[in-house]
């Protein structure tokens, strides 16, 4: 949380990126504490790895210092606090943290834990749920990645056919 606040205040974007990478690592640590090792693994690899690299390479292509003066936007503050207020209202009826009798724990999940290894032969329940029980979600997820890949290619490459010709010219010149 402290890191997150620092991110608001920091104006140098490179420092911000470093802080956000640190934030992801902390997040990953929290996930381990919450028993979500797979998620922690992904968060560490993505947040502290890929996203940081991408942010940095985007910064190389753009400017790295924020020129806008820091000012407090009251409307935004009110809006966020209102959202948070609604959430506070909402979570007040949720079961307490770690409660084994909560509905989330009782309805669908137990079957995965009991049956997953028998039905799929795989001890990591997360993997078997991911790939089999909710395999279609994962298919969708893969499609999202694929979409992003094509999207970036569309935006960032100057088109396949055109690229090759100027490159050859470059080589000839040098």
């Amino acid at each position, binding site marked *: 949380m402290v890191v997150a606040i620092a991110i608001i205040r920091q104006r140098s974007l490179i420092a911000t990126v470093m802080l956000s990478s640190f934030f992801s690592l902390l997040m990953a640590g929290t996930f381990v504490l919450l028993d979500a090792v797979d998620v922690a693994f992904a968060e560490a690899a993505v947040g502290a790895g890929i996203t940081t690299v991408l942010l940095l390479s985007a910064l190389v292509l753009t400017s790295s210092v924020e020129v806008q003066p820091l000012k407090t936007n009251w409307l935004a503050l009110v809006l966020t606090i209102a959202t948070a207020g609604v959430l506070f209202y909402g979570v007040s*009826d949720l079961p307490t943290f770690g409660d084994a009798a909560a509905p989330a724990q009782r309805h669908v999940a137990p079957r995965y834990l009991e049956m997953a290894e028998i039905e799929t032969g795989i001890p990591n329940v997360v993997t078997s749920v991911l790939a089999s029980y909710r395999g*279609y979600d994962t298919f969708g997820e893969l*499609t999202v990645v694929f979409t992003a890949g094509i999207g970036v290619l569309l935006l960032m490459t100057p*088109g396949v056919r055109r690229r090759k010709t100027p490159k050859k010219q470059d080589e000839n010149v040098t």
Partner: protein
Amino acid sequence: MLALVVTWAAFAISLVLLFQVLNDGPIRYFFGGWAPPWGIEYRIDALNGFVLVIVGFVSAAVLLFAGPSVGKEIREGHQHLFYAMVMLLLAGLYGMAITGDAFNVFVFLEIASLASYALIAMGKDRRALTAAFQYLVLGTVGATFFLIGIGLLYAMTGTLNMVDMAERIHGIHGSRTVLTAFAFLTVGIALKAAVFPMHYWLPGAYAYAPSVVSALLAGTATKVAVYLLLRFIMIFGADFAYVALPLGATLTVLAAVGILIASSSAILQNDAKRLLAFSSVAHLGYIILGIGLGNDTGVTGGILHMFNHALAKGAVFLAMGAVMLQIGTTHINRLQGLGRVMPWTMAGFTAAGLSLIGVPLTAGFVSKWYIVTAAIDRGWWPLVLVMVASSILAVFYIWRIIDAVYFSAPGPGAENVKEAPMTMLAALWMLAGASVYFGIDSSFPASVASKAAAIVLAQMP
């Protein structure tokens, strides 16, 4: 070419599915053979069957149209990627409509959103980039709100399957968490559906996107988002949404204000595509108004208007695409005299435009009539006034284009402009013709819509 075949096939399948659903009741399909709520299922009833047909019809027409337009507006080396992206967008939209699993909706929502961000950014104008970025930020916030809503629901019910969720939610209606979940889901969906006042991203996105993308998004994307709203009203139970919560009143007021503001802004626009984009916001207002009224006629009208508006708006955006292809701009001043050189395009535009206004004998009239009747039934007279006023405003903004096209002297160079290619005209007339046909004989869509409305309102007291 392949893309065209696929969309037509998908359209055909969606029609078959719809008829099957109408005859035999809901179809369910379990992925991986796991029975829900453990696995993910597809579940089709009259409501989403109808939405699938809307998406199928519009996309089939748009893809028929696409060839020359894409050829002009998208760089050569990018065209195959562009089509791939369109296909992914459609896959996402179909998926959102068809799935019976709340989290699966989120995944497909993101497929469709990512594809549409990239597609919008392909517009020629550099403002397309900022429009796409704005859409991306708001869209992601919307999707994350949606995710929070699902998370809260999951914490309360322990399931993600929609049918299962609907059953389990009944016992805990009074819970504050359920209320909050509903609020977050509604706000998230409203951001995606560009419901006033969350329409901020829409005009820019539609105005600067490539023509094909504008037509596709205008005809399908927001409709699917509205469908999601209906679906979640169903999950929570209509009695809960309308009676326990002021959802109906809130939606109606927002919709009414939105209709008026958007229609007035439309009149002030100088770019035809931007004008039509504002008109889209207004028409979404009608749909939401119908849903907000919460009685049988109103919801039927809302669902019917989804269909009719998709046809008409798809057609006018396609007409603008044809104009873009031939003269390279859609600025209203440059449209002068095009009625003479591109008669077929402009006739199609006019037919669909009349439907947008809601002139009798067009499809737009039928659904507006339903909504007005519903408002009278509820005794909400100010709404009737709003509907009439906005229709007059619509006359003004459509007239601005028609006036330029037919009653102004052709601008310099207009003699050299040719009529759009045959395939484009065919696609345009497919939509425009349908919108006239269903205005004269509206029995088919109206009967489906009223069946769908009956499903939505099943638990109404």
